[in-house]
């Protein structure tokens, strides 16, 4: 049975993630949260965490449970924690969202929901990091796995800071109330989450996935190592900006205090630029002449990443970063991370479905190809619509036109829904001609819950 090579709960993580993505976009269309209200308003926090935890983090976790074993050529360790981690994350997120609604005055309870969320979410991420960390453990990590290792460290820092915020907002930890968390810890929370955990990990996984699906040379390159070092330097400087500033101030070098964030930006930019060169190398030196939709659509995400870098520089240059931070974060979350996520899901889901369905008869019976499970001619329209919607949305936020932003959100929502439908069709084998859809012995996969190993020998009475 092929099941041993497939991460059992990955499709469940993906499904939960997509539900949150669609729900968040529905709220945006409805005009809920930013930009209708302030960026710090509880309503915005609901939206932000639906996207960052509900969609992006669950997607990343599900993908890593499948790909870390491929990256290190070892099976997943402590696999039985994968389902409890999902339950913990979902329950924690539900409590977090409810806690924000409580802050917004939507309802009242005597229970501190945020404090509960601030415990459950870090616990969930700790389990995720435990499973993946244990699987990575053992030395001799290839470069993509080293990116993931850094990403896991960052998610723990992010979750820990998030937990502290939740406890502070709930009135616990009065001793910490003196520290200005909003200016000192919040930027670290955001940078570690979006930059360290989601972006840096995505970079690492792309270093393996892109060459794998385009058949490009994927030997470790000096430039890729430079991206890793640049990213680690940028993340470390960001995380330690406040302690470094305090130290510098103590040493009496007041004028030097602002150099740390700037240095972090320089390292981060260098990292993105060299990554761009690496991507160019992969696309140019691919052995497959026809490039599949997942790799084509990923170019939209890479473009959005480059655009995010340029926008950050422009906003820093004009001193309008604070005013337009929302537009920048929207472009990062929806253009780069969501764009990359959706484009890779378009390959990963059919690939996993193929393995699950045809793995048992592989080599014994004629099977359709993975590409037969999808209909690229139709799906490229959805990706084009998606990226156009994101560009228009970013533009609308930059020029403060909330109604235009909602219209753009309609376009991205429709595109997302269409891509979800394409994924369901692939999973149901609807695009495969009926006559070779299910050769004898092939298993029709379930939509998102794993098949329990009821047929396996170990369940039979001896």
């Amino acid at each position: 049975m092929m099941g041993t090579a497939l991460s059992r709960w990955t499709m469940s993580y993906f499904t939960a993630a997509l539900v949150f993505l669609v729900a968040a976009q529905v709220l945006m269309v409805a005009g809920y949260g930013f930009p209708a209200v302030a960026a710090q308003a509880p309503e915005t926090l609901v939206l932000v965490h639906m996207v960052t935890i509900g969609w992006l983090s669950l997607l990343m976790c599900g993908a890593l449970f499948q790909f870390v074993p491929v990256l290190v050529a070892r099976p997943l360790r402590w696999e039985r924690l994968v389902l409890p981690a999902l339950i913990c994350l979902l329950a924690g997120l539900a409590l977090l969202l409810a806690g924000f609604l409580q802050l917004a005055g939507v309802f009242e309870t005597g229970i501190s929901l945020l404090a509960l969320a601030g415990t459950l979410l870090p616990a969930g991420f700790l389990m995720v990091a435990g499973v993946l960390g244990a699987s990575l453990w053992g030395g001799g990590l290839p470069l993509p796995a080293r990116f993931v290792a850094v990403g896991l460290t960052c998610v723990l820092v992010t979750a820990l800071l998030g937990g502290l915020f939740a406890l502070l907002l709930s009135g616990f930890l009065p001793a910490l109330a003196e520290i200005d968390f909003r200016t000192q810890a919040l930027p670290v929370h955001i940078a570690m989450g979006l930059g360290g955990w989601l972006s840096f990990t995505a970079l690492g996984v792309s270093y393996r996935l892109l060459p794998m699906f385009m058949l490009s040379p994927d030997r470790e390159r000096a430039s890729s190592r430079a991206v890793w070092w640049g990213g680690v330097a940028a993340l470390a400087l960001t995380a330690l900006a406040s302690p470094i500033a305090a130290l510098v101030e103590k040493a009496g070098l007041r004028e030097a205090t602002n150099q740390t964030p700037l240095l972090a930006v320089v390292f981060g930019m260098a990292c993105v630029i060299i990554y761009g060169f690496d991507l160019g190398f992969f696309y140019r030196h691919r052995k497959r002449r026809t490039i599949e939709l997942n790799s084509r659509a990923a170019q939209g995400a890479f473009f959005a990443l480059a655009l995010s870098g340029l926008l950050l520089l422009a906003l820093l240059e004009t001193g309008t970063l604070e005013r337009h931070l929302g537009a920048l974060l929207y472009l990062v979350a929806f253009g780069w991370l969501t764009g990359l996520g959706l484009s890779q899901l378009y390959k990963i889901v059919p690939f996993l479905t193929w393995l699950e369905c045809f793995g048992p008869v592989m080599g014994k019976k004629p099977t359709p190809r993975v590409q037969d499970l999808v209909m690229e001619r139709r799906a490229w329209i959805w990706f084009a619509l998606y990226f156009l919607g994101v560009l228009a949305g970013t533009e609308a936020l930059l020029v403060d036109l909330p109604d235009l932003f909602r219209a753009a959100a309609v376009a991205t929502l429709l595109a997302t829904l269409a891509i979800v439908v394409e994924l369901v069709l692939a999973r149901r084998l609807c695009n495969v001609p009926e006559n070779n859809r299910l050769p004898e012995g092939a298993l029709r996969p379930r939509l998102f819950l794993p098949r329990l190993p009821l047929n396996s020998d170990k369940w039979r009475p001896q």
Partner: protein
Amino acid sequence: MTHPDYELDVRQILREGGEPFTAIMEAVAALVPGQRLRLLATFKPIPLFHVLGSRGFEPSAREIGSGDWEVTFTPAAGQSSGAVTEPKSAADGIGAANETWSTPVVELDNRDLEPPEPMVRTLEGVEALSPGQTLAALLPREPVFLLEELEARGHRWRGALRPEGDYRIVIRRG
């Protein structure tokens, strides 16, 4: 008792980028005793010579123009059909500490295929072997999924990453 040659034209499949291996093995299985297989392909299918040779077929190939080849596989005397003829001695090594593996009967180069095709073709090759026979394959990278699948199907393998960055595996059918 003579039967007309069984003719199989896989040129269309090959031109469309498909993999005719399964169709060929099905044709071999469908041969009646003494019947020859006449195969039309767009290249000289040398790996197939090994596979069918190990099943007692004698290949003879000739170019028929525009780069196409006609290969006739004639069953050797006493060979009834595509049934397994591999001497059982090849399986002797199973369980022995210093087992020796027979020379691979097939060499596959699957380096330029997109996943999961390297695994699909390797497994197709393995399934076509007789127990104890071995197959060697070059793969674009360490085949994590394939190794687990081989184990699940009871085959044995030896493999290593090569300095060139690809992976060479020798599989013995269990």
